[in-house]
């Protein structure tokens, strides 16, 4: 049988970064293929190539036996490839049927044939068991219903291969279950579906076959029936590629273990109002590096925001027995420093110079200020010290922060946060994402040094290797709760289970 869509040897580079590195994949008619991988693994790039938004550097896209011209979105649509993005492409003030036919309205005497359009849209919805109100105004619908409108839109336009980009990221669990049923119904009706997600359990429930991308390469492709959650977690986090010799780990701290940070029953919401943390509790001792593991989106980012004063919460969090503040300034005054996930937005003022960015957060204290004035010579001296200590390149205090490479930007942030003052608590979120080996090592070294000097470090990462290499204990988050605290020696299988909310094989 001819594949509905095949990607053959796709390679795509952005500058020095190879986003997709020789990936071949295909999906048969009536099949659901799940595509999983971490952020930045290349999933989005790959589908952008498939639907003609990007032109691949190498490789070809074949739909129903016919090769598509590279980088031509129009012919991909004509060939029956439809994409439902995370951000819907809908016009709020228009009705459901108007949105579906927009741009391809059936016409009669030069006018839109509304009756026919409504009829056809309603028929498409019924055929695939999607409940939509044809005359409702789109902005009045909830997210799940808007998503159904998007799916109907693609089907009405003749999509035979549907690509759903993280479709459940915006849905509540019950809505997600319904979507899974819809996807199965589409497959039963002969359509192919490529389902992108990083929720492994859901993937195993919906798909026939699963493909895992890691750092732009296909690392696993297997039938879901023959795949366990643990194997999948291993493939996603790259544990399988790890060399046999275990990575070097730090010594246990010599300092007496005393409790530094206590969190109990922390609850908070996501930005969209859905609960993110649901009664999270843990303790962190002085000199300890506690890893936070979990599949992306299980509350890690929100935990970091709570601890750095960027997100309001209920429950108690106390540092040294004193309640943690609720604003970034109060939390900082307490000795909490932050290596945020999104360093461009949260950590750096890109148009300002390197030395000015070193001052950020400490701009009113020596050596950056004397009284009300900026202390230029003090700032320059401190900047030169930090640049040398962290091997920042180019070693120029006046370079614009936005002109540095990603690795050097992160070194700048790490130097500022870790090597100044005496931080009590370090909250680091994916601090080595996108960094090369040298920069990664330096950031890890800085985290270890800070812990050795008695600070507590909370390291959030999606990379199990990183957690094993750096952490004393690993807390696993699942749906906003700690499902277990494991030692770094715990097997991938057991960590994988914890990450999916299950009990480890043995207690």
């Amino acid at each position, binding site marked *: 049988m001819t594949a509905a869509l095949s990607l053959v040897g796709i390679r795509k580079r952005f500058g020095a970064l190879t986003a997709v590195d020789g990936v071949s994949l295909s999906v048969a008619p009536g099949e659901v293929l799940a595509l999983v991988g971490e952020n930045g693994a290349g999933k*989005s790039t790959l589908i952008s190539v498939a639907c003609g938004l990007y032109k691949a550097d190498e490789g070809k896209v074949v739909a129903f036996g016919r090769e598509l011209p590279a980088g031509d979105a129009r012919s991909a649509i004509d060939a029956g490839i439809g994409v439902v993005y995370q951000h819907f492409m809908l016009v709020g003030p228009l009705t459901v049927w108007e949105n579906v036919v927009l741009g391809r309205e059936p016409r009669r005497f030069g006018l839109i044939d509304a009756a026919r359009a409504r009829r056809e849209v309603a028929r498409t919805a019924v055929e695939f068991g999607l409940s939509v109100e044809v005359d409702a105004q789109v*902005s009045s619908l909830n997210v799940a219903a808007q998503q159904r409108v998007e799916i109907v839109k693609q089907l009405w336009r003749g999509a035979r291969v549907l690509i759903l980009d993280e479709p459940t990221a915006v849905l509540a669990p019950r809505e997600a279950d319904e979507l899974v049923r819809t996807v199965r119904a589409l497959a039963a009706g002969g359509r192919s579906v490529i389902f992108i997600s990083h929720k492994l359990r859901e993937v195993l429930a919906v798909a026939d076959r699963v493909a895992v991308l890691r750092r732009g390469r296909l690392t696993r492709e297997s039938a879901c029936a023959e795949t366990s959650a643990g194997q999948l977690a291993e493939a996603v986090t790259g544990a399988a590629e790890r060399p046999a010799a275990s990575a070097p780990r730090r010594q246990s701290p010599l300092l007496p273990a005393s409790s530094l940070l206590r969190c109990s029953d922390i609850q908070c919401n996501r930005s969209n109002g859905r609960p993110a943390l649901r009664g999270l509790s843990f303790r962190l001792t002085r000199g300890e590096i506690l890893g936070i593991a979990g599949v992306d989106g299980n509350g890690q980012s929100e935990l970091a925001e709570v601890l750095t004063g960027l997100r309001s919460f209920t429950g108690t969090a106390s540092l040294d027995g004193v309640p943690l503040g609720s604003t970034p300034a109060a939390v900082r005054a307490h000795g909490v420093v932050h290596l945020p996930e999104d360093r461009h937005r949260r950590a*750096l003022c890109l148009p300002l110079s390197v030395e000015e960015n070193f001052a950020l957060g400490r701009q009113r204290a020596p050596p950056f200020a004397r009284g009300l004035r900026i202390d230029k010579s003090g700032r320059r001296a401190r900047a030169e010290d930090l640049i040398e200590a962290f091997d920042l390149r180019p070693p120029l205090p006046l370079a614009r922060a936005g002109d540095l490479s*990603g690795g050097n930007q992160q070194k700048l942030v790490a130097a500022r946060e870790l090597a100044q003052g005496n931080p009590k608590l370090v909250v680091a979120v994916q601090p080595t994402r996108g960094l090369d080996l040298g920069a990664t090592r330096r950031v890890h070294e800085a985290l270890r040094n800070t812990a050795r000097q008695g600070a507590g470090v909370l390291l959030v990462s999606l990379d199990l290797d990183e957690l094993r290499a750096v952490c004393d204990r690993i807390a696993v988050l699942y749906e906003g709760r700690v499902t277990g605290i494991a030692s770094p020696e715990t097997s991938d299988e057991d960590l994988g289970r914890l990450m999916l909310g299950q009990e480890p094989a043995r207690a």
Partner: protein
Amino acid sequence: MPDAPPAGPDAAMSVRARLFSPARDPLWGAAFAVFTSLAVSFIAIAATGRNPALGFAYLADGAFGGAGPLGETAIKGAVLLLTGLSVSVAFTVGLFNIGAEGQLIWGALAAAVVGRFDLPLVLPCALLAAAAAGALWGLIPALLKVRRGVHEVISTILLNWIAIHLVHGWLVAGPLAAAGSGASVSVAGTEPIRAAAFLPRLLQGSRLDLGFPLALCIAFAVWYLLTRTHRGFEWRATGAGLEAAEASGIPASRRVCEAMALSGALSGLAGALLILGTEHKYPGVFRTGYGFDGIAVALVGGGTAAGTVFAGLFFGAIRAGATRLQLVGIHPSFAELIQGLAVLLVAAPRMFAPLLRRLRGAPGTAAAAPPVPTVQA
């Protein structure tokens, strides 16, 4: 999706390219813009059949030909550099203040009202009142922005019209109108201020007054505040990366409000200079356009205090000399052509730079842009 701009030889190149031309860019850009705008106006005047050399000679004479013209240039330059600084200060926290005109009007009115009171130190009082009035009017869009997310460009434009109609259409024509002016209310304006509130004249045969040195001192103070104090640094950090500033503990919303209050105060002071220096009352017809020209001054000045002073004085000279153009049959609006061209030429490189980069096929611009347009229902 790559989350960081690709690092590599290209990134290193761009660092070097910028470092070898630090700060030189905006200054040369402005000088080039000014020169080119003069040259284009020269050609345009020739195209209308007038003598451009003669026109420019008259323009220069009106701006620099002796104590009187130099005084006019200084008076107008002082007002423009204050409104220019007003816009620049708002720029530092990332806000585009189109409302300098409205802030100037309230400042002028406050100076005209306070200047009538029999107070000791009436002149400083009138100046302070003008600054306070402008600051309050500048604070409104800042509060709307940080509390309700209203875009400052929209709110300041609307507030300009509210100020114009409240002051010109009602206060100056009604409650504050000079007594006994009767039917000619619309041209009469308010009662004159007391002589003690006049800005003292500094030179015989010229209208040059204390406003000019005052404006230069204020410009120096603003430069010092923005570049030498940590409060100024916090403003710049807020403008350069709002979320990063907030995450580092800077109360960004407060800083935005402070900067907009200062921005309004500077425009208010510009209004006070006009009233206390030359008008000596709030006139019935008072459409200055100095507030709007402040935007041009700030753009040509590159948002820096020093650049804004020079741009303000340049535009002041053009304004002062423009009236003389009529003597050789050239419409005085040619002066506005020079101004407009200068702004266009300063802004153009910034508008075209991304396009040029894309044409040269630089990495990290077109290719790495997210493919997915984010249209929310």
